[in-house]
């Protein structure tokens, strides 16, 4: 694992644990746990969600990722029945819930504010729903203790929310949301009120807990790192639309649109023209593409996208495919690696590349110097320009 993105590339991380032992083998192919069908949400004349369709499998952890105002919360609230969609349908566990109020749906929810009841102890907060369904005192207590130990707060039950740290409050909210064993766990930016260290720690814990319980989970976030590390699948949203749905590797490795490419991670967008034999011309340099990208070539000018960390220097010589000379305009030290701004071609087109400290030392990369780089065919993504 390298850089700030802690996910395992190349290894599928789909979860197969099914939640609460439901038998789901009969029609696994066409039956998903949560189905959103053509959902549109209007606020007056403004469409916050535009014909959204989405499937979430049982036991899956799905993240809604997107910039502020893109409709993530709106979609989550529609799924919860808090602000019901204007058009479209929602199914959960095979049951249509499109028009049901929140109280008749089956979910637990954690808000950014946690919404813990300030005048009730941690125990009473967690047991709030249990008491109501007539669970006996002893059973409630046992369940509360179980839930609190699940989130690592077994000795905090008698405190009030205000006496806990932000991270502890968040875990109480999580325990409360799980108390009734909901079929669906909804999280609206549950970590965003916490400071960076705690956030990274809780990210890990929450993911582990979710895997252990196998509860189908939908989390809203605008933090790509959070989405990439926690989600089984990410739903990238923009302006009320879904841009792409895929595993973290798919989202990061093969973004479906320039928006996704730019929003998740860093990406160079290089203007290129179509050359012969399904090659492209980057100025005077000829680049070869892999077959999948070749198929996307239509029109004479395209955008060739490369991530800074995919740019090669080691072992690159004049004979290497897709290689050309660049000049180092700027070299920025970022701790574990350096970000270089390279320029190439007649008009000094800029290009960002991430070099390891080792490489910089070994190859003697320095500002003003020259370096030959290669853009491996498999790392180039093609989008039509304009």
């Amino acid at each position, binding site marked *: 694992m390298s850089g700030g993105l802690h996910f395992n590339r190349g290894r599928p991380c789909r979860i197969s644990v099914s939640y609460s032992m439901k038998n789901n083998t009969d029609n696994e192919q066409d039956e998903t746990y949560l189905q959103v069908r053509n959902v*549109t949400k209007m606020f007056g004349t403004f469409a916050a969600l535009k014909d959204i369709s989405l499937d979430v499998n049982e036991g899956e952890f799905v993240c809604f990722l997107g910039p502020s105002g893109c409709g993530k919360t709106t979609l989550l609230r529609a799924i919860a029945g808090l602000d019901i969609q204007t058009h479209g349908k929602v199914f959960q566990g095979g049951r249509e819930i*499109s028009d049901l*109020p929140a*109280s008749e*749906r089956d979910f*637990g929810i954690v808000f950014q504010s946690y919404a813990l*009841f300030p*005048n009730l102890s941690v125990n009473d907060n967690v047991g709030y729903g249990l008491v109501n369904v007539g669970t006996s005192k002893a059973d409630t207590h046992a369940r509360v203790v179980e839930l609190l130990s699940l989130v690592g707060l077994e000795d905090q039950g008698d405190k009030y929310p205000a*006496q806990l740290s932000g991270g502890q409050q968040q875990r109480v909210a999580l325990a409360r949301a799980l108390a009734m064993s909901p079929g669906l766990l909804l999280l609206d930016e549950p970590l965003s009120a916490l400071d960076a260290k705690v956030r990274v720690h809780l990210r890990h814990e929450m993911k582990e807990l979710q895997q252990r319980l196998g509860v189908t989970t939908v989390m809203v976030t605008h933090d790509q790192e959070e989405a990439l590390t926690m989600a089984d699948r990410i739903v990238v949203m923009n302006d009320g639309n879904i841009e792409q749905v895929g595993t973290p590797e798919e989202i990061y490795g093969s973004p479906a649109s320039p928006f996704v490419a730019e929003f998740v991670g860093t990406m160079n967008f290089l203007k290129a023209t179509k050359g012969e034999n399904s090659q492209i011309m980057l100025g005077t340099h000829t680049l070869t593409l892999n077959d999948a990208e070749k198929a996307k070539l239509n029109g004479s000018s395209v955008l060739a996208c490369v991530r800074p960390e995919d740019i090669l220097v080691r072992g690159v010589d004049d004979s290497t495919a897709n290689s050309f000379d660049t000049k180092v305009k700027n070299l920025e030290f970022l701790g574990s690696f350096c970000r270089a701004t390279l320029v190439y071609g007649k008009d000094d087109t800029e290009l960002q590349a991430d070099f390891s400290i080792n490489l910089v030392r070994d190859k003697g990369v320095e500002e003003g110097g020259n370096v030959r780089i290669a853009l491996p065919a498999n790392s180039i993504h093609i989008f039509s320009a304009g």
Partner: protein
Amino acid sequence: MTDQTLSSASPAIVKPKLSRDDYVMRAFVLVIGLWLVVTLLMPLYAMLSKSVQDKDGLYIGLTNYIEYFSTPALFYSINNSFFIAFLTTAITISLASVFAFILSRSTIPGKGIFKSIALLPLLAPSLLPGISFVYLFGRQGVLKDLMGDYSIYGPIGIVMGEVFYTFPHALMILVAAFSIADARLYEAAEVLRSSRIRTFFTVTLPGIKYGLISAIFVVFTLVITDFGIPKVIGGQYNVLATDIYKQVIGQQNFQMGAVVSVVLLFPAILAFAVDRFVQRKQVAMLTARAVPYEPKPHTLLNRMFFLYCCIIAVMIVGTIGMAGYASFVTFWPYNLELSLNNYDFDVMDGGGWGSFYNSLELAAYTAVIGTSVIFTGAYMVEKAKGFGLIRGIIQFFCMIPMAVPGMVLGLAYIFFFNHPDNPLGFIYGTMPILVIVTITHFYTVSHLTSMTALKQMDPEFETVSASLKVPFFKTFLKVTVPVCLPAILDISIYLFVNAMTTVSAVIFLYSSDTALASIAALNMDDAGDVAPAAAMCMVIVATSATVRVFHALLSRGIAAKTQKWRKR
């Protein structure tokens, strides 16, 4: 996908199903709306229509208004009312701004005591200063020489009384305005070596601008709608509020009473509208990052400030003290021996001690029922989902009582509840109608206090409850009410004290069985029993003060008990 083509052809609008909570909340919203229609709108409508009818109830258009404006004796009161209101507003605001400035921006000792004294007039019925000034400056007054050739009975007495009565109202608004001003501006001014006077005009004044405007309109409204003071000390000087009383009680001319009411309604509504507009702006000024101002000591100024506060405090205590002293004097000014004779209300007209017990009963019912109705109503209107239009209309209804003078409301109740066709007529002349009119009269402030408290609650409490399948009313009782308890107590004490002291809203509605202490005081004063009237006022003051002290202790107890979860 076939799905897509299907849906784009005819996107059916999803009609959300309502949960049981939704039904219950909406039912509550409708009930509260209905309550306001019956206790507020229909009476006001009855009054408006009465003003365009003749004695037999026939529609005569604006004839009554034409008569009103062609009778100098009547419309001249408009002049008088405005004159008194303007003058009082100018004096009260000047005195109160300086006092508020000192309380919030200086380091003089005893600020807490000064503030408590300044708020004392809130505990008294508005006729108390009138009575007190009669003893101080009247024909047999202790200080009558100060008056020279002038008489206290008339505009001078009214203005003095109104200043006493409105001072704490203005002070509370202004202290709040000063205390939210941002300290960083002062620090900036200090660093720039701005002179104190310049700082005052460039920083202080703009900072309290909205508070100042708000205070001006509140005082103006209080004065123009007040009835107690001009009644007691106004002599031949007529104002709108006393005109209504004279038309209705003196001449039984209900139509003209309605006309005067409508005339009085105008300035009150205007002042209210401006105040609401300004208040909305004020909220935006208080940014989350404002740093409270820490006053710095300044010796010479402090001495002047201290002196100023002492003078004001002496005047307030003196006014109440005079009434208190006079109430114990056996026979003013001939027998100055102290006795409890004047407290023997049962031998006097006006209702006796029974009226005091009635007042207690009214205050208790108003506090308990009023707080329940208003807080629950505010909760439902705030939290119910959907029903946007109806909730908006109810929010607006809740603001109306503030703009309706008590006398006008009382008169409107006569027209509405005493109408032979009204099935609710049976409550006329009973305790319930007094409770209802008092709740309605003081609805707005209580409603706004509730809303402020409710808005500070996390809006997702109800959502979380719904996801845990807990009905909203359980969360209301287990979370909302306990967390809002300080505000709820504030509302109940506000209603209690106002029910104890109010005169204007109930003066047309009491019967011999339901005479009230404040009205007994008024009637005794009317009958020339000024000392017993003073005594009754003192009983009211003592009661309000006791309840306030009790409230303070209770609040402190609650704060101590709940500080575990309120503070980190």
